[in-house]
Protein backbone atom coordinates (compact mmCIF):
# COMPACT_ATOMS: atom_id res chain seq x y z
CA UNK A 1 0.00 0.00 0.00
CA UNK A 2 2.97 2.33 0.46
CA UNK A 3 3.28 2.42 -3.31
CA UNK A 4 0.25 4.66 -3.59
CA UNK A 5 1.70 7.19 -1.20
CA UNK A 6 5.05 6.98 -3.01
CA UNK A 7 3.33 7.74 -6.31
CA UNK A 8 1.50 10.63 -4.71
CA UNK A 9 4.64 12.10 -3.17
CA UNK A 10 6.58 11.70 -6.38
CA UNK A 11 3.95 13.61 -8.30
CA UNK A 12 3.65 16.22 -5.57
CA UNK A 13 7.42 16.81 -5.55
CA UNK A 14 7.44 16.92 -9.34
CA UNK A 15 4.69 19.58 -9.32
CA UNK A 16 2.60 17.46 -11.67
CA UNK A 17 -0.72 19.15 -12.48
CA UNK A 18 -2.10 16.33 -14.56
CA UNK A 19 -0.85 13.03 -15.87
CA UNK A 20 -2.25 10.25 -17.98
CA UNK A 21 -0.97 6.90 -19.15
CA UNK A 22 -2.83 4.83 -21.72
CA UNK A 23 -4.17 4.96 -25.22
CA UNK A 24 -4.87 8.49 -26.45
CA UNK A 25 -8.30 8.56 -28.07
CA UNK A 26 -10.25 11.49 -29.47
CA UNK A 27 -12.62 11.55 -26.47
CA UNK A 28 -9.74 11.45 -24.03
CA UNK A 29 -8.04 14.30 -25.82
CA UNK A 30 -11.19 16.42 -25.59
CA UNK A 31 -11.53 15.69 -21.86
CA UNK A 32 -7.89 16.47 -21.02
CA UNK A 33 -8.10 19.78 -22.90
CA UNK A 34 -11.28 20.72 -21.04
CA UNK A 35 -9.76 19.84 -17.66
CA UNK A 36 -6.58 21.81 -18.40
CA UNK A 37 -8.52 24.81 -19.62
CA UNK A 38 -10.55 24.91 -16.40
CA UNK A 39 -7.40 24.42 -14.29
CA UNK A 40 -5.57 27.23 -16.04
CA UNK A 41 -8.53 29.58 -15.59
CA UNK A 42 -8.12 29.25 -11.81
CA UNK A 43 -4.34 29.81 -11.96
CA UNK A 44 -4.51 33.49 -12.78
CA UNK A 45 -1.93 33.32 -15.58
CA UNK A 46 -1.59 36.09 -18.15
CA UNK A 47 -3.76 35.22 -21.20
CA UNK A 48 -0.61 35.09 -23.32
CA UNK A 49 0.89 32.23 -21.27
CA UNK A 50 -2.45 30.43 -21.00
CA UNK A 51 -2.80 30.43 -24.79
CA UNK A 52 0.78 29.29 -25.35
CA UNK A 53 0.50 26.39 -22.91
CA UNK A 54 -2.90 25.38 -24.30
CA UNK A 55 -1.64 25.54 -27.87
CA UNK A 56 1.42 23.39 -27.16
CA UNK A 57 -0.79 20.99 -25.22
CA UNK A 58 -3.08 20.58 -28.23
CA UNK A 59 -0.16 19.85 -30.56
CA UNK A 60 1.53 17.40 -28.17
CA UNK A 61 -1.70 15.50 -27.52
CA UNK A 62 -2.64 15.40 -31.19
CA UNK A 63 0.87 14.16 -32.00
CA UNK A 64 0.26 11.26 -29.62
CA UNK A 65 -3.18 10.69 -31.10
CA UNK A 66 -2.07 10.74 -34.74
CA UNK A 67 0.93 8.61 -33.89
CA UNK A 68 -1.34 5.70 -33.05
CA UNK A 69 -2.54 3.81 -36.08
CA UNK A 70 -6.01 2.56 -35.19
CA UNK A 71 -5.98 -0.12 -37.89
CA UNK A 72 -2.73 -1.51 -36.65
CA UNK A 73 -3.57 -4.91 -35.18
CA UNK A 74 0.02 -6.10 -34.97
CA UNK A 75 1.26 -3.68 -32.39
CA UNK A 76 0.60 -4.83 -28.86
CA UNK A 77 -1.63 -2.70 -26.63
CA UNK A 78 1.35 -1.79 -24.49
CA UNK A 79 3.09 -0.18 -27.43
CA UNK A 80 0.06 1.92 -28.38
CA UNK A 81 -0.03 3.36 -24.91
CA UNK A 82 1.48 6.77 -24.21
CA UNK A 83 2.37 8.94 -21.24
CA UNK A 84 1.39 12.56 -20.89
CA UNK A 85 2.25 14.93 -18.02
CA UNK A 86 2.07 18.64 -17.39
CA UNK A 87 3.92 20.30 -14.57
CA UNK A 88 4.30 23.80 -13.27
CA UNK A 89 7.61 24.53 -11.54
CA UNK A 90 7.93 26.76 -8.49
CA UNK A 91 9.38 29.49 -10.73
CA UNK A 92 6.25 29.40 -12.89
CA UNK A 93 7.73 27.57 -15.86
CA UNK A 94 5.50 24.99 -17.50
CA UNK A 95 6.72 21.66 -18.85
CA UNK A 96 4.67 19.47 -21.12
CA UNK A 97 6.05 15.95 -21.22
CA UNK A 98 5.10 13.07 -23.46
CA UNK A 99 6.38 9.54 -23.86
CA UNK A 100 5.48 6.97 -26.47
CA UNK A 101 6.80 3.96 -28.35
CA UNK A 102 8.24 4.57 -31.79
CA UNK A 103 9.21 1.98 -34.40
CA UNK A 104 13.00 1.59 -34.69
CA UNK A 105 12.96 2.42 -38.40
CA UNK A 106 11.45 5.86 -37.66
CA UNK A 107 13.89 6.85 -34.92
CA UNK A 108 16.64 8.33 -37.11
CA UNK A 109 14.19 10.34 -39.16
CA UNK A 110 12.52 11.76 -36.06
CA UNK A 111 15.86 12.51 -34.41
CA UNK A 112 17.10 14.35 -37.53
CA UNK A 113 13.94 16.48 -37.60
CA UNK A 114 14.25 17.39 -33.93
CA UNK A 115 17.96 18.24 -34.30
CA UNK A 116 17.23 20.37 -37.35
CA UNK A 117 14.52 22.26 -35.45
CA UNK A 118 16.73 22.70 -32.38
CA UNK A 119 19.55 24.16 -34.50
CA UNK A 120 17.28 26.99 -35.70
CA UNK A 121 16.75 30.41 -34.17
CA UNK A 122 13.38 32.22 -34.06
CA UNK A 123 13.59 33.65 -37.58
CA UNK A 124 14.82 30.40 -39.13
CA UNK A 125 11.94 28.53 -37.47
CA UNK A 126 9.48 31.05 -38.88
CA UNK A 127 10.87 30.58 -42.40
CA UNK A 128 10.95 26.79 -42.04
CA UNK A 129 7.33 26.79 -40.84
CA UNK A 130 6.21 28.84 -43.84
CA UNK A 131 8.14 26.59 -46.21
CA UNK A 132 6.56 23.39 -44.84
CA UNK A 133 3.12 25.06 -44.63
CA UNK A 134 3.25 26.12 -48.26
CA UNK A 135 5.05 23.15 -49.82
CA UNK A 136 4.62 20.23 -47.47
CA UNK A 137 2.23 17.46 -48.33
CA UNK A 138 -0.51 16.78 -45.87
CA UNK A 139 -0.76 13.25 -44.56
CA UNK A 140 -4.11 11.42 -44.60
CA UNK A 141 -4.44 12.04 -40.87
CA UNK A 142 -4.04 15.76 -41.29
CA UNK A 143 -0.57 16.03 -39.83
CA UNK A 144 1.81 17.77 -42.13
CA UNK A 145 5.12 17.82 -40.33
CA UNK A 146 4.23 21.20 -38.88
CA UNK A 147 3.51 20.06 -35.34
CA UNK A 148 7.05 19.97 -33.95
CA UNK A 149 8.03 23.21 -35.71
CA UNK A 150 5.01 24.94 -34.20
CA UNK A 151 5.73 23.50 -30.75
CA UNK A 152 9.33 24.79 -30.95
CA UNK A 153 8.20 28.23 -32.13
CA UNK A 154 5.62 28.67 -29.39
CA UNK A 155 7.80 27.19 -26.66
CA UNK A 156 10.67 29.59 -27.30
CA UNK A 157 13.04 26.92 -25.89
CA UNK A 158 14.98 24.00 -27.31
CA UNK A 159 13.08 20.71 -27.40
CA UNK A 160 14.48 18.18 -24.93
CA UNK A 161 14.19 14.62 -26.12
CA UNK A 162 15.49 11.10 -25.71
CA UNK A 163 15.16 7.79 -27.55
CA UNK A 164 15.71 4.69 -25.43
CA UNK A 165 15.86 1.33 -27.26
CA UNK A 166 13.27 -1.12 -25.86
CA UNK A 167 13.79 -4.14 -28.12
CA UNK A 168 14.66 -4.76 -31.77
CA UNK A 169 11.33 -3.25 -32.91
CA UNK A 170 10.73 -0.27 -30.65
CA UNK A 171 12.34 2.65 -28.88
CA UNK A 172 10.73 4.81 -26.23
CA UNK A 173 10.55 8.46 -27.28
CA UNK A 174 10.51 11.04 -24.47
CA UNK A 175 9.82 14.70 -25.18
CA UNK A 176 9.92 17.63 -22.76
CA UNK A 177 8.61 20.96 -23.98
CA UNK A 178 9.20 23.95 -21.73
CA UNK A 179 7.22 27.14 -22.02
CA UNK A 180 9.35 30.22 -21.57
CA UNK A 181 7.64 32.83 -19.38
Amino acid at each position, binding site marked *: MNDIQDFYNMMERGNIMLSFKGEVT*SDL*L*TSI*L*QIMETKMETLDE*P*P*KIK*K*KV*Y*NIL*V*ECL*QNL*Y*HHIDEDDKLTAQNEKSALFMIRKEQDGEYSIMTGNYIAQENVNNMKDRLDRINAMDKEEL*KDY*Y*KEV*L*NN*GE*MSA*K*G*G*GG*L*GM*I*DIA*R*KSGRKLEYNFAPVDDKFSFFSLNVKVAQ
Partner: protein
Amino acid sequence: MEELIIEGTSKTPTIKFNPSTGYLLVRGRSIPENSIEFYKPLVDILEAYNSNSQSSTNVDIQLEYFNTSSSKCILDVFKKLEAINAGNSSVTINWYYEEDDEDMLEAGEDYQAIISVPFKMIEVEED
Protein backbone atom coordinates in the same frame (compact mmCIF):
# COMPACT_ATOMS: atom_id res chain seq x y z
CA MET B 1 -26.10 29.69 -53.99
CA GLU B 2 -27.14 29.17 -50.41
CA GLU B 3 -25.46 30.67 -47.39
CA LEU B 4 -23.05 28.37 -45.56
CA ILE B 5 -23.47 28.36 -41.79
CA ILE B 6 -21.52 26.04 -39.48
CA GLU B 7 -22.08 26.57 -35.76
CA GLY B 8 -18.97 26.57 -33.59
CA THR B 9 -18.05 23.90 -31.03
CA SER B 10 -15.31 23.66 -28.39
CA LYS B 11 -12.99 22.33 -31.11
CA THR B 12 -14.22 24.01 -34.29
CA PRO B 13 -14.97 27.61 -35.29
CA THR B 14 -18.20 29.23 -36.38
CA ILE B 15 -18.17 29.65 -40.15
CA LYS B 16 -20.54 31.89 -42.08
CA PHE B 17 -20.30 32.60 -45.76
CA ASN B 18 -22.94 34.53 -47.64
CA PRO B 19 -22.38 34.35 -51.42
CA SER B 20 -24.90 37.15 -52.09
CA THR B 21 -23.02 39.67 -49.94
CA GLY B 22 -19.53 38.21 -50.33
CA TYR B 23 -18.95 38.13 -46.58
CA LEU B 24 -17.00 35.36 -44.84
CA LEU B 25 -16.60 34.99 -41.08
CA VAL B 26 -14.42 32.41 -39.31
CA ARG B 27 -14.55 32.83 -35.54
CA GLY B 28 -13.52 30.78 -32.53
CA ARG B 29 -10.98 28.03 -32.10
CA SER B 30 -9.94 25.48 -34.64
CA ILE B 31 -8.41 22.34 -33.15
CA PRO B 32 -10.20 19.38 -34.75
CA GLU B 33 -8.27 16.12 -35.20
CA ASN B 34 -9.48 15.92 -38.79
CA SER B 35 -9.48 19.41 -40.22
CA ILE B 36 -9.62 18.41 -43.91
CA GLU B 37 -13.12 17.06 -43.40
CA PHE B 38 -14.19 20.12 -41.39
CA TYR B 39 -12.98 22.74 -43.88
CA LYS B 40 -14.17 20.92 -47.02
CA PRO B 41 -17.63 22.62 -47.24
CA LEU B 42 -15.99 26.06 -47.03
CA VAL B 43 -13.32 25.25 -49.62
CA ASP B 44 -16.03 23.86 -51.93
CA ILE B 45 -18.39 26.84 -51.64
CA LEU B 46 -15.53 29.30 -52.27
CA GLU B 47 -14.58 27.33 -55.35
CA ALA B 48 -18.17 27.60 -56.66
CA TYR B 49 -18.45 31.27 -55.63
CA ASN B 50 -15.45 32.23 -57.78
CA SER B 51 -17.46 31.82 -60.99
CA ASN B 52 -20.21 34.15 -59.69
CA SER B 53 -18.52 36.46 -57.19
CA GLN B 54 -19.54 39.88 -55.83
CA SER B 55 -17.47 42.94 -56.75
CA SER B 56 -15.92 42.85 -53.29
CA THR B 57 -15.40 39.99 -50.85
CA ASN B 58 -14.77 40.74 -47.18
CA VAL B 59 -13.26 38.21 -44.84
CA ASP B 60 -13.07 38.38 -41.04
CA ILE B 61 -10.78 35.82 -39.42
CA GLN B 62 -11.24 35.95 -35.64
CA LEU B 63 -9.45 32.87 -34.40
CA GLU B 64 -8.57 32.37 -30.76
CA TYR B 65 -6.11 29.63 -31.73
CA PHE B 66 -5.72 26.86 -34.23
CA ASN B 67 -3.75 23.63 -34.48
CA THR B 68 -1.22 22.86 -37.22
CA SER B 69 -3.64 20.48 -38.89
CA SER B 70 -6.03 23.46 -39.34
CA SER B 71 -3.24 25.74 -40.52
CA LYS B 72 -2.92 23.82 -43.81
CA CYS B 73 -6.68 23.97 -44.37
CA ILE B 74 -6.76 27.70 -43.58
CA LEU B 75 -4.05 28.10 -46.23
CA ASP B 76 -6.29 26.20 -48.69
CA VAL B 77 -9.14 28.62 -47.88
CA PHE B 78 -6.80 31.58 -48.45
CA LYS B 79 -5.63 30.09 -51.76
CA LYS B 80 -9.27 29.98 -52.89
CA LEU B 81 -9.61 33.64 -51.84
CA GLU B 82 -6.44 34.44 -53.76
CA ALA B 83 -8.02 32.92 -56.89
CA ILE B 84 -11.22 34.92 -56.27
CA ASN B 85 -9.14 38.09 -55.88
CA ALA B 86 -7.35 37.32 -59.16
CA GLY B 87 -10.81 36.91 -60.74
CA ASN B 88 -13.68 39.39 -60.64
CA SER B 89 -13.80 40.29 -56.95
CA SER B 90 -11.49 42.36 -54.79
CA VAL B 91 -10.83 40.47 -51.59
CA THR B 92 -9.79 41.88 -48.20
CA ILE B 93 -8.78 39.61 -45.33
CA ASN B 94 -9.11 41.10 -41.85
CA TRP B 95 -6.95 39.12 -39.44
CA TYR B 96 -7.93 39.76 -35.79
CA TYR B 97 -5.60 39.10 -32.87
CA GLU B 98 -5.83 39.93 -29.17
CA GLU B 99 -3.38 42.51 -27.86
CA ASP B 100 -0.17 40.81 -26.60
CA ASP B 101 -0.92 37.68 -28.62
CA GLU B 102 2.27 37.73 -30.67
CA ASP B 103 1.77 34.11 -31.76
CA MET B 104 -1.53 34.93 -33.47
CA LEU B 105 -0.14 38.13 -35.03
CA GLU B 106 2.83 36.13 -36.37
CA ALA B 107 0.50 33.44 -37.71
CA GLY B 108 -1.35 36.14 -39.67
CA GLU B 109 1.94 37.52 -40.97
CA ASP B 110 2.96 34.04 -42.11
CA TYR B 111 -0.16 33.82 -44.30
CA GLN B 112 0.27 37.40 -45.47
CA ALA B 113 3.74 36.47 -46.75
CA ILE B 114 2.43 33.47 -48.70
CA ILE B 115 -0.88 34.76 -50.09
CA SER B 116 -1.19 37.71 -52.46
CA VAL B 117 -4.41 39.18 -51.07
CA PRO B 118 -4.49 42.43 -49.02
CA PHE B 119 -4.38 41.61 -45.29
CA LYS B 120 -5.37 43.94 -42.48
CA MET B 121 -3.99 43.11 -39.06
CA ILE B 122 -6.52 44.25 -36.46
CA GLU B 123 -5.64 44.29 -32.77
CA VAL B 124 -8.55 43.80 -30.38
CA GLU B 125 -8.71 44.00 -26.60
CA GLU B 126 -8.59 40.83 -24.56
CA ASP B 127 -11.94 39.43 -23.45
